[in-house]
């Protein structure tokens, strides 16, 4: 009888997901995009957690577990960490890690839109610097 591997593709037998095991390493831009998504999810997680904390009746463990926005926030953090791990797989840590500061930008924007927090010139200046710094990291160094 023919060996199983001639009937069933080798890839299925070893149950490896082609997206990770056979693909080329992520390019620098792909890794940056993953961290970018990770910061958006992280900011959404913080907003959800803030929403959950605002409506927390009793701060016990049960109160936390039944707090839907809070739990949603934790889940988003989990997904965001997963994306960060994927990005770090092929990308440089020293280049990708500072990009996480973009989270400050989204949180500032979202808390202005949702909680009507004040935006003052200092925050605006900070956002400009962070975005410019991330642009420098992204544009510079062809790798």
């Amino acid at each position, binding site marked *: 009888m023919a060996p199983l591997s001639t009937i069933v593709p080798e890839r299925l037998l*070893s*149950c*490896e*997901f082609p*997206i*990770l*095991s056979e693909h080329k390493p992520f390019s620098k831009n792909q890794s940056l995009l993953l961290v970018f998504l990770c910061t958006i999810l992280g900011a959404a997680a913080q907003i959800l957690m803030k929403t959950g904390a605002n409506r927390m009746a009793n701060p016990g463990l049960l109160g936390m577990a039944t707090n839907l926005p809070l739990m949603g926030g934790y889940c988003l953090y989990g997904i965001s*960490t*997963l994306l*960060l*791990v*994927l990005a*770090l*797989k092929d990308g*440089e*840590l*020293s*280049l990708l*890690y*500072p990009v996480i*500061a973009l989270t*400050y930008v989204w949180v*500032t924007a979202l808390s202005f839109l949702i909680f009507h927090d004040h*935006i*003052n*010139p*200092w*925050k*605006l*200046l*900070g*956002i*400009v*610097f*962070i*975005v*410019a*710094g*991330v*642009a*420098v*990291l992204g544009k*510079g*160094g062809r790798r």
Partner: protein
Amino acid sequence: MKTPIGNMLLVLLASFIGSFGAVFLKSGAGQLRQGWQYLFISRQPPFFNWRLASGVALFLISSYFFVLGIRPPGELSVLYPMVSLGYIFTLIWSRIFFNEPFTRVKFIGLFMIVVGVFFVGLGSK
């Protein structure tokens, strides 16, 4: 300055621990090259991807100290820049543990981000 030294030390500790969390995530991520299923289980002994697990654990510990540190009367304008010190720690560990080169682009980009985080902190009351 009204921010107690204790709050500063807690936030500093948080960013220090967090920077090691990033190092462990990166080293655990290397094992993902073999496939998705190695997210938690690695091919070589001891089979459990303890590096990724340690990275996540360090991040959790770090966020605990961070929350302790930013409690009142700590001021975010003083404490946020200390968070971005974590990026500088990470730059150093990246060179030591992963042989990633120091480049001018990294220094300039990182400097601008640290300044930006400082200003965001200044604007947060």
